[in-house]
């Protein structure tokens, strides 16, 4: 049964025009108007709250020092929505645990949310985008190692119920780890991780966690999912489609043109991603030397279409992104057909992470997009 999750980055799009030199890291916050920002926060929260009535689940994330995403603390919208919603599941994808210096605090935040929501939390752990290293000042050459130590500590902290334990690791030091409350879900809320490479997919497979591929399209998604399936099989772990998630842009409308127009507007999320000074994309040691070297040399960020051709990320049209399998757009029936075709091509997934709002897409359009999707696409897509 396909589960659909609505995701928005809570963009501060009113600031985009005044930031010609990039939308991340070094941008001055004087560009941000708190009165406009407050209105935006409330409307994005309203859109998420609407999901509860539409049969959609909720996905939040976090980024730092950016006008593309003003969710700088992912557990804040989660906390508000834990009270405002009754049935929707609440996914954070995710918490950048390798950049968060206090891992026990992460366990406490997730546990508290899980209890308040009566067991509706899905715990995402992510390494975070390369430009997140700069605001966190975390050592990029140790990120992978720190990420997994944080993971181990958080899981142990959430599943230990007999009083304090000791943790003196390489990156985290606590002599008395004792997390209250214990989580609602036992042994702990489901864990999700995002993947970009076959290597990390393999490691996550051995844990049996849900993996999410973000905008990886027709070409790269099967590679990542394939690595996961292979490693899980080797480890003797059964993998159903519920272990796989895919994040994409979705625009539906009463007409094909209206759906595409909505997807086009949401796609400013993708188009603005490369609007960052290039050095923030390759902090030393974040990626292996090969890919880092390519970025030092100044390679352009490209998206591959299904036929293997490619286009620059910052100026792809809605048709380009549809050809890549990153956007699905049109009438509800057309979108269902496109998602079915994509799911079949990549080997199937049960979690459709739908970016239903992005960039300048207005509140009215977002409500219409989510409502129409829920009423006319979800009943069919839910049976995939």
């Amino acid at each position, binding site marked *: 049964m396909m589960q659909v999750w609505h995701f928005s980055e809570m963009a501060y799009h009113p600031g985009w025009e005044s930031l010609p030199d990039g939308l991340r890291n070094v941008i001055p916050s004087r560009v941000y108007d708190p009165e406009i920002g407050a209105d935006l926060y409330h409307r994005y929260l309203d859109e998420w709250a609407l999901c509860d009535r539409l049969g959609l689940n909720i996905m939040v994330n976090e980024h730092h020092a950016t006008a593309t995403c003003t969710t700088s603390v992912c557990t804040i919208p989660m906390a508000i929505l834990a009270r405002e919603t009754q049935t929707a599941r609440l996914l954070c994808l995710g918490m950048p645990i390798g950049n968060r210096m206090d891992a026990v605090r992460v366990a406490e935040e997730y546990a508290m949310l899980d209890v308040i929501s009566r067991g509706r939390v899905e715990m995402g752990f992510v390494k975070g985008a390369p430009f997140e290293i700069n605001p966190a000042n975390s050592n990029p050459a140790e990120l992978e190692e720190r990420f997994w130590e944080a993971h181990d500590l958080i899981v142990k902290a959430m599943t230990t119920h007999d009083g304090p334990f000791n943790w003196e690791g390489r990156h985290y030091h606590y002599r008395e780890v004792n997390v209250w409350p214990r989580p609602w879900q036992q042994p702990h809320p489901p864990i999700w991780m995002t993947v970009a490479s076959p290597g990390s997919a393999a490691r996550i497979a051995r844990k049996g966690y849900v993996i999410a591929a973000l905008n990886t399209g027709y070409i790269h998604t099967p590679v990542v999912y394939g690595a996961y399936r292979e490693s899980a099989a080797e480890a003797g772990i059964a993998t159903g489609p519920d272990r796989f998630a895919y994040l994409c842009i979705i625009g539906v409308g009463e007409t094909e043109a209206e759906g595409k127009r909505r997807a086009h507007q949401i796609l400013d999320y993708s188009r603005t991603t490369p609007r960052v000074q290039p050095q923030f994309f*390759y*902090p030393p*040691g974040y990626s292996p*030397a090969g890919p880092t070297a390519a970025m*030092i040399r100044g390679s352009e960020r490209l998206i591959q279409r299904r036929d293997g051709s490619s286009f620059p990320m910052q100026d792809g049209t809605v048709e380009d992104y549809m050809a890549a399998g990153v956007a699905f757009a049109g009438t509800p029936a057309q979108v269902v057909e496109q998602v079915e075709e994509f799911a079949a091509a990549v080997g199937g997934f049960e979690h459709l992470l739908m970016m239903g709002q992005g960039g300048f897409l207005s509140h009215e359009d977002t409500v219409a997009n989510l409502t129409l999707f829920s009423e006319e696409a979800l009943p069919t897509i839910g049976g995939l």
Partner: protein
Amino acid sequence: MSLVLFLHGEHFTAMGRPFLDRLGAGRELHAPLYPGYDGAPPDPDFRSVDDLAYRYLDLLEELDARDAAIVGCSLGGWVALEMAVRDRSRIGRMALLAPVGVKLSGREERDFADLPFMREAEAARALFHDPARWAPDHAALDEAAVEAIALERQWAAWYAWKPYMHNPALAKWLHRAAVPTLLLWGESDGFALPEYGRRLAARLPDARFETIPDAGHYPHIERADATADAVLAFLENA
């Protein structure tokens, strides 16, 4: 002169070769590459400048060095200072080329330019007097050469990411580095300004401060002969 130990900087180690040829001519020169920089990943527990300092103190002991001369460039200068405050018994003199490692400014100032978060061209201007001549043209280099640059950056982060390029505790122990020391600075250094070098010299018990014109942070690369002349003159006057 007793043996010379050269401790390399964080970037462009290969470009220091002409300087090392001068330094090693007729002398016993040891110029080890640090773990990681030598092509093998370091032991997971080996990841600090302290570790480097102890490793090369061990080396001086293994070599049974007497009055060793240490020449340290930038990160290597920091390693040399960490060695000297621990055990100067085998160290005769030190010639340090724009060493980093000591925090002299306040908490809201930076002694060392934030290279990893500067644009490539801006970082090149900070590092070189004449970047057009000396800074690598990444687009023109082959893939392996740019990968080598990426790896040097990775190991620099491994050893010196946070606190950035310094040990907050080192300043208070500098009185222990009581060996004759030359601090040699490129006049155009934009990574660690010459003014920082002057202040550092004033904090050391027995240091002399000199500059090299037409050179940036790596005077031994941009002015190999002039730098070798100044270093050798200092070491040989022992």
